């Protein structure tokens, strides 16, 4: 609750939030970047630094512009989870109002919407925070995350029969798989993603938003195939590709999934053993609303 108070710069038990407080919380879950060009937008960015733990990386010589980030701080991500679980927060409405109300980078292909969906699915899987702000466990069952929260069993009418079968097979194949993340960080290079780095990021609860123009993948999560021991040979990877283009329809295209190859993407080196891999494609602009796996 101390971290909640620091993040909100307010009473940690408050139920009413300003737009700045809401932005501060979402910024701790995924890498929202400011796109400030006017005095008013600069003022908003400075307010985030001054009051809501955003970090200033650089200020130009004439003090007219600055570069800021919300760095990877898992404790603050947990604080944001506590705030976002309150009924008055309304994450989806908040996300929309923040995109419209602040000069922030909205993403090129709907990637922030997908990161929000993944984050909300994680929060639902771990459950609501208790009185001390902790969920029962911060790590969770991977099958429950995928089939139950990311793809809801209650919306199975929207899932094709083959998709339901695929999801059930996932539960059979990985009955003891576990997962942990509470925020996403943005990488700025293409060559830095490998299995050891991904496992290290898991130790701080960080998923990955890939660098701009990264080929074939846009985001990455990892899971442990069995149990909770952090070992590279117990590692599984979830690769996400996200498109907000109507050319990509609801019917899966094998070539798109084939392009998400961990060896081509340098996640694995040539001599490495294959690892368990889940590939998910989000066709956000598809006219037909359907989930297919």
């Amino acid at each position, binding site marked *: 609750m101390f971290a909640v108070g*620091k993040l909100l710069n307010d009473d940690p038990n408050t139920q009413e939030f300003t737009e700045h407080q809401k932005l501060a919380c979402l910024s701790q879950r995924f890498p929202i970047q400011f796109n400030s060009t006017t005095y008013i937008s600069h003022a908003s960015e400075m307010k985030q630094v001054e009051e809501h733990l955003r970090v200033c990386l650089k200020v130009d010589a004439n003090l007219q512009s600055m570069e800021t980030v919300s760095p990877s*701080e898992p*404790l603050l991500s947990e604080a944001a989870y506590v705030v976002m679980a309150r009924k008055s927060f309304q994450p989806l409405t908040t996300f929309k109002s923040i995109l419209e109300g602040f000069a922030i980078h909205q993403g090129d292909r709907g990637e922030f919407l997908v990161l929000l969906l993944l984050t909300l699915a994680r929060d639902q899987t771990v459950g609501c925070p208790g009185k001390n702000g902790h969920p029962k466990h911060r*790590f969770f069952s991977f099958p429950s995350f995928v089939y139950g929260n990311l793809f809801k069993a209650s919306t199975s009418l929207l899932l094709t029969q083959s998709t339901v079968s695929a999801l059930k097979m996932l539960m059979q194949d990985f009955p003891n798989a576990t997962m942990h993340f509470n925020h996403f960080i943005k990488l700025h290079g293409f060559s830095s993603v490998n299995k050891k780095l991904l496992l*290290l990021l898991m*130790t*701080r609860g960080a998923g990955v938003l890939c660098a701009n123009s990264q080929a074939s993948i846009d985001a990455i999560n990892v899971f442990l195939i069995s149990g909770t*021991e952090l070992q590279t040979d117990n590692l599984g990877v979830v690769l996400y590709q996200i498109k907000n283009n109507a050319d990509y329809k609801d019917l899966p295209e094998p070539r798109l999934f084939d392009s998400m190859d961990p060896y081509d993407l340098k996640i694995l080196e040539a001599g490495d053993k294959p690892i368990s891999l889940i590939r998910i494609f989000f066709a956000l602009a598809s006219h037909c609303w359907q989930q297919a796996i």
Partner: protein
Amino acid sequence: MNKILLTPFPQKDVIGDTSPILPKDIGGYDFPPASSFHKLLESLKARIERPSKPSPSQVKKKEKPQAPQLSSKVPIVVLVFDEAHTLTNQEQKDENWSNLSALQRALHALSHFPMFSLFLSTRAKMPQFTSASDDASSKITVGALKLSEPFTDLGFDTLAKKVSFNSCWTLGFVTHDSHIVHLGRPL
């Protein structure tokens, strides 16, 4: 805003004179703050060492409650002075005396007690905390005592444990408060 952590509490120079620097009547209990602090310490020790009421599970198992052990390495009292630059007379440059210099002398007289002092500031320039030439104490000016350097630009993950996948790191460990509070900046 990030704060600068300052420790203006003068320390003995390890190379210099190691004899007592202040008269015993100041460092002893004749010095009113020392006498008061001694009473506070005795009271705190009594509270810490007094066995607390046994928990229901201890009653059931007929166990005796354990008193916590005091360590001589851990301070029992921590004093924190927020925005400590207000203790200085930065606007009056000709003035040698300041609330800070008086406080430094008083704290030095209490240095044999298990106490630790933290001075926090958001000001970037703090010559009166860090510069020996600006200090009112001649012992600091001549080098018999030295000022601790401030902690600035603490960075991120300063306190983080180094990850080793050879040992048994589990999700239970990396999701525990004791792990995640060490990641990021120290709050």
